[in-house]
């Protein structure tokens, strides 16, 4: 479990993190979502002891990261795909990390197999593509078979198969009861991977919710298809819904949920051929939530913003 309490980090007068607090629990994949410059990477670096906080603390399993003597056996992390020495081979990169934590060399071979880099294990990292370096980073994170995994933008540079692989890997890690935290600025990616989401902007926690709750909360309307739509419309209006008809004869009901519509139609013996709750696209929801907090955004993006 990761517990972050009142974390503040200032670079001169600029606050990168502003009293940020949250918890990450085991057994679920938690997403750390925010626009560029929101403070995601800074928070992860402080949690992992690479940066010093101005105030506040971050604990993993009730300890600061730099108090853990064999950290790779408890926490695995990938912060930067380009963090391996280009002159060293993939095997030696992992072997050096393993040696520092008393991890056997057989394990190095095993994780290289797992991430699909066994065939290039003895090639220098400098010749690797971004996707291969990302896989090598993930291999390093898994090296100690840790109970806590933190990944900063893990799908960057991965191809479709790699993205699917990382999703399934993270899900299986969470299913085994491990604590998984990954950061991303892509809502679409988070929607497919995480169970719980922490949204931050300008170093502050804007929202903490489950992905299912987020979808429900931004449910927009319900599309109803029935051969007797004209009879159903006044019933729904009587339930307090605002109802409009579409060109193809379906009804769009706002202010009433799908189960209530289903029950009302059943009570009136009106057949229902389709009942579709419709939400605002998560990407739109995310942009709306973070629009105030986005640090860097191009002029064109600001114009396109609803």
């Amino acid at each position, binding site marked *: 479990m990761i517990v972050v309490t009142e974390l503040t980090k200032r670079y001169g007068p600029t606050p990168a993190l502003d009293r940020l607090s949250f918890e990450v629990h085991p057994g679920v994949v938690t997403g750390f979502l925010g626009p560029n410059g929101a403070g995601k990477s800074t928070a992860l670096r402080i949690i992992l002891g690479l940066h010093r906080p101005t105030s506040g603390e971050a604990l993993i399993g009730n300890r600061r990261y730099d108090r853990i003597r064999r950290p*790779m056996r408890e926490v695995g992390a990938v912060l930067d795909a380009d963090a391996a020495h280009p002159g060293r081979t993939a095997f030696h990169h992992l072997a050096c990390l393993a040696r520092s934590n008393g991890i056997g060399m057989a394990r190095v071979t095993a994780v290289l197999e797992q991430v699909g880099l066994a065939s290039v294990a003895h090639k220098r990292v400098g010749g690797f593509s971004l996707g291969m370096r990302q896989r090598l980073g993930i291999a390093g994170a898994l090296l100690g078979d840790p109970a806590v995994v933190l990944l900063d933008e893990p799908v960057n540079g991965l191809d479709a198969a790699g993205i699917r692989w990382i999703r399934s890997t993270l899900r299986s890690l969470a299913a085994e009861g491990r604590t998984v935290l990954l950061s991303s600025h892509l809502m679409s990616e988070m929607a497919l991977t995480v169970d719980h989401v922490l949204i931050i902007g300008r170093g502050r926690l804007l929202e903490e919710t489950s992905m299912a709750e987020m979808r429900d909360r931004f449910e927009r309307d319900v599309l109803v298809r029935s051969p007797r739509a004209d009879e159903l419309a006044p019933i729904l209006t009587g339930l307090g819904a605002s109802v409009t008809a579409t060109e193809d004869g379906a009804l769009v009901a706002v202010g009433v949920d799908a189960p209530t519509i289903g029950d009302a139609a059943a009570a009136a013996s009106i057949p229902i051929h389709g009942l579709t709750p419709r939400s605002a696209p998560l990407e739109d929801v995310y942009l709306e939530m973070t629009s105030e907090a986005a640090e860097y955004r191009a002029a064109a993006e600001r114009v396109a913003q609803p």
Partner: protein
Amino acid sequence: MTTLRKCPATADTSSAAVPTVPRSRVFRDAVAAEWMKLRTLRSTYAFLASSAAATLLGMLILFLLIQSFDQATAAEQANYETADPTVVVMPFVIFFVGSIGAMSITSEFTTGSIGPGLLAVPQRRVLLGAKATTAAAVGLLGGLLFALLAFAGATLLLCDRPAPLNPWPTWTDAMPTVFCAALVVMVTSTVALGLGAVVRSTASTLVTLGGLVLVAPIFAHFLPTTWQLRFGSILLPNLTPQLAGGNHPYLLSQAGAAAVIVVYVVVALGAGALSFSRRDAS
């Protein structure tokens, strides 16, 4: 994770319950990892090869000096410089082997690999201590190897030629200088590491090291005699003859030279530890 479970992470215990390990074991493993890092980089071997080349070049210069000595008159021979590899070879060995110590930390900052290094060993003083240990070991072994080669070569070239060209009546007289030269290489390697921990840039650190080891002694020659001796006496390459004792032009006693060595190490590693501990890693 099924495949992972077939091959547990821990070499000697189950990963399910993370055992508490003593600090000494943590440090020993960190040193072993740093040693492996040095062994698995080509730049380490490039600097050792450069030291070997400098040794060979130094031997060629000594050979030419001896040739010239043999053709000189007795009066001219009396004014010849000594054929001492401490002057010709060791400053370059000090620079090249010292660069390995510097690169052990600056290359990690330059390539970003300091991140995984600190994730593996997050106690910064332990990590810097491990790097200092390996830098010192490489410095001592490298210094000893090239000092022995240089002095063996010089002894073979000199044969039974007299002083002042030959500074050692027998080869055993050269041994204190050999060991002190190796000690200075070791110290320079740790000083370079401390400097690298402060500066973090490979280029800046190596330029500073080169200035300290190769340029400053030349610069000292242009100072007034009194200052030349004062300044020259505390420069790293000039500490070798002062540590070894015997005849030399400098001001420090053996104990004084040893104290200067200690100051170099304490100041460089102290500044490095302070900077490495307090600043954000990347």
